[in-house]
């Protein structure tokens, strides 16, 4: 029996690498008065649903997708989390 598993795949910029979007947002936040913000880095989140025997199998599949395509090992790390169906789903 397989079931539908909802995943959030977080693609995170490698620490230490220049993150121009994060830098621009950081400056904008400071100019709005949030001077306590010390650092901002921007990554992305990919929401997917897939059929799998269980959550482990789904996570393993998504990790394989990250290694093959979703993340660039030079600049990005990734993290896969099982989430509730409603999170990030298209309305």
């Amino acid at each position, binding site marked *: 029996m397989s079931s539908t598993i909802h995943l959030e795949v977080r693609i995170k910029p490698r620490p230490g690498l*220049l993150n*121009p*979007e994060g830098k621009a947002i950081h400056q904008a936040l400071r100019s709005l008065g949030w001077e306590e913000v010390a650092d901002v880095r921007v990554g992305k989140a990919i929401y997917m649903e897939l059929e799998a025997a269980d959550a482990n199998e789904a996570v393993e599949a998504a990790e394989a997708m990250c290694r*093959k*395509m979703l993340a660039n090992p*030079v*600049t990005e790390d990734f993290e896969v989390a099982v989430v509730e169906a409603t999170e990030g789903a298209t309305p």
Partner: protein
Amino acid sequence: MKVAVVTFPGSNCDYDLYKAVQQVGGDPTFVWHRERGLEGYDAVMLPGGFSYGDYLRGGAIARLSPVMEDVVAYARSGRPVLGVCNGFQILCEAGLLPGALVRNDSLKFRSFPVRLRVERTDTLFTEGYEEGQILRIPIAHGEGNYEADEATLRRLEDEGRIVFRYVDASGEATDEANPNGSWHNIAGIVNEDGNVLGMMPHPERAVEELLGSTDGLALFQAMARALSPATP
């Protein structure tokens, strides 16, 4: 010189490359990304553009195209592959060149002529230039900021694999002359064997006076000299 110009959905400099190859007496053929087989070509070129809308990352989806398996095998066999702009991104994504091209540090799409210093003249692509020669060649990209881990960057410098660098009018690789934030003003690199060149600037857009510069022509001429059968 028979050249395969590989086109992906979203390529937009494919005709420019085609024309540049013709201009130096070469024989270009468009190869659609779903086609297979690159035997019989003397060189393969990956054009600039926005393959797959640059979704995910520039070149990330294009490099999974059927033809890319052949491009990888072709490059690994030591035959010449040139990737310009999005083509450079695809070569990095495919693992044929190290590193990655990330968002310009300005966050802006940069489109104007830049100055490049030729760092190596012993490659198939650059033997028509003088070492240290300064070229005027246009760039047009939003993600041309070359990044890699420390060890890779040091290796590129130590092994002299940086072929072009962004420089100012006096030939200095300054921050002001760097249009995208690339490490050490990298504009183009080769692989270990020197048969795969990736560069962000567009030599194919600098092959006629009408385009404002002819400084890109010598690259295609050098390839044509090396790859055309000797005339009896």
